[in-house]
């Protein structure tokens, strides 16, 4: 976003919103901002890198559970067990949980866990040139498997209930409105940093390379680059952002359950980006806010029709505005200029080409 637009947004989110919104609505906005952080990562991986990740919830969950484990331990106090363990019949703290008592370790894990999983998966599938539709289906299956894994380990993860009743966040009292406002500001700042960082990345040579790989992976390979490596990096960055967003989601909402990271939740993370505009970082942020706000409004006013609206949104955006709201102007221009000498350069034709079979 241009400096002016960025400044206006920053003022709007950092100053105006905390002043005019009721605590309840500010909480909601904080939640939307968490999703917007994920959206920034998706815009990088999908918009720039052409990797449609239907499993972003997994990374959101990894970051979220890492944070949730720490907060539950802090809540329980030293030597005590988190509440759900006692009703799950766990008698001593599982080994996996122990290091999460350390806040620094937790913060590192919030980023590292998603990155490691993304690198592992990415280097496996991208090296084998699994992409496009295949990659989408695999990442979706990953989300499905991850949820089953989490639900199945009730003593370790809280099962379907997830981690609930989180009341403090690094000294902030989550029952206190002023502290919650501070939490909101932290989320907004993290979003700002994520946006600026990814914008920088997208504008760099690396960003160009990523777009080049999206539009012609084989060609890039014959320029001497390893596309698997480049894609894995983008995938890992988007995973890290999702992890951070998940970690912030936990104190904002006060709980985290496997339903927040399953197949449907992962798709909902995407649709905001699609609505806002996958090729524009700012559009992705706006879209994520708009979509989640619409979800709240509809479920308050017309719960029965929300699925129709959500379904229709997917259809309408894909049919009439594949570049999203942010791309509307460009799309209109292309329509007018269709007969002109300019080819539509802003819509990458190759971004979405069918799975090639190369042997």
């Amino acid at each position, binding site marked *: 976003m241009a400096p002016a637009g960025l400044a206006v947004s920053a003022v709007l989110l950092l100053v105006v919103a905390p002043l005019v919104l009721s605590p309840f609505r500010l909480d909601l906005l904080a939640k939307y901002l968490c999703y917007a952080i994920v959206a920034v990562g998706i815009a990088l991986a999908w918009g720039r890198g052409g990797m449609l990740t239907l499993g972003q919830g997994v990374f959101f969950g990894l970051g979220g559970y890492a944070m949730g484990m720490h907060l539950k331990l802090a809540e329980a106090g030293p030597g005590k067990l988190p509440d759900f363990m006692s009703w799950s019949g766990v008698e001593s703290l599982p080994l996996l949980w122990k290091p999460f008592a350390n806040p620094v370790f937790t913060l590192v894990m919030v980023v590292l866990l998603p990155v490691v999983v993304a690198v592992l998966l990415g280097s496996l599938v991208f090296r084998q040139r699994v992409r496009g539709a295949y990659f989408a289906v695999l990442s979706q299956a990953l989300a499905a498997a991850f949820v089953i894994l989490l639900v199945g380990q009730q003593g370790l993860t809280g099962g379907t209930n997830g981690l609930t009743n989180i009341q403090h966040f690094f000294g902030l009292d989550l029952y206190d409105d002023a502290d919650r406002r501070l939490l909101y500001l932290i989320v907004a700042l993290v979003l700002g940093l994520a946006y600026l960082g990814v914008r920088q990345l997208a504008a*760099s*040579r*690396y960003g160009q*390379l990523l777009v080049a790989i999206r*539009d012609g992976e084989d060609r890039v390979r*014959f320029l*001497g680059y390893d596309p698997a490596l480049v894609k894995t990096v983008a995938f890992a960055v988007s995973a890290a952002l999702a992890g951070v967003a998940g970690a912030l989601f936990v104190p904002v909402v006060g709980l985290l359950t496997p339903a927040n990271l399953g197949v449907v939740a992962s798709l909902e993370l995407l649709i905001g980006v699609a609505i806002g505009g996958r090729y524009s970082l700012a559009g992705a942020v706006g879209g994520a806010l708009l979509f989640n706000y619409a979800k709240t409004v509809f479920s308050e006013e017309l719960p029965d029709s929300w699925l129709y609206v959500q379904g229709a949104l997917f259809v309408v955006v894909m049919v009439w505005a594949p570049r999203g709201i942010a791309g509307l102007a460009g799309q209109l221009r292309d329509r007018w200029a269709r007969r002109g*000498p300019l080819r539509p350069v802003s819509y990458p034709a190759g971004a979405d080409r069918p799975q090639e079979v190369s042997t």
Partner: protein
Amino acid sequence: MSEALLEVRGLNVVFSGFHALTDLDFTLRRGELRFLIGPNGAGKTTLIDVITGLTRPASGSVRFDGRELVGRREHRIVRAGVGRTFQTSVVFEELSVVDNLDLAAGFRRPLPALLRRRRGVSDAVAAALDTIGLGDLADRPAGVLSHGQRQWLEIGMLVVQRPRLLLLDEPVAGMSRDERDRTGELLRTVARDHTVLVVEHDMDFLRRFASTVTVLHEGRLLCQGTVAQVQADPRVQEVYLGRAKEAA
């Protein structure tokens, strides 16, 4: 200058029972500009595909500067110094001409160095831009280029990588006469300090710009020599004329 840069020995490629290349031996000397011709299905593109790692041979070896290429991954072969173009040119439409060249030039940059924005134009890129004559269009997105310009940009993207062997797959296909001439000139310039192998159909282009020619037919080496020698070879005439008769 006369030692072998590329040595292909006993190459066999089979596609689901179809023998695309059979026991092919082929040598390219350092500094050479060689044309590779043959009727459709002769195995010209397959040979290039094998050299660049796109296709795995059933047997045989490809040695480049004494090192085996078969079994290496594509980007490693490029890094070893073998560059190629494709029949249908692929340039990055969203990036500007300069960025396309810059991207190609930077293939040896470590990942951290990639994280910075491009500032200015490096000498190598400027030189390549000059060679391919697209200086005026440097900052336009590559998507607006004409077919011919795209081919030149592709060649530029190769040259800027300073490869030791260039493989060009039908560089003048679909070009106007004017564009063909310019491409030929470009080819001569490039061939001055590179080893080049060109796959080409266009006999007229061949006569004007080729020195030595290799003829493939049905996956085997038919003959090799100067343009005049090859044209005089009865087997070549048969292969081409036979086809011509069939077609007629």
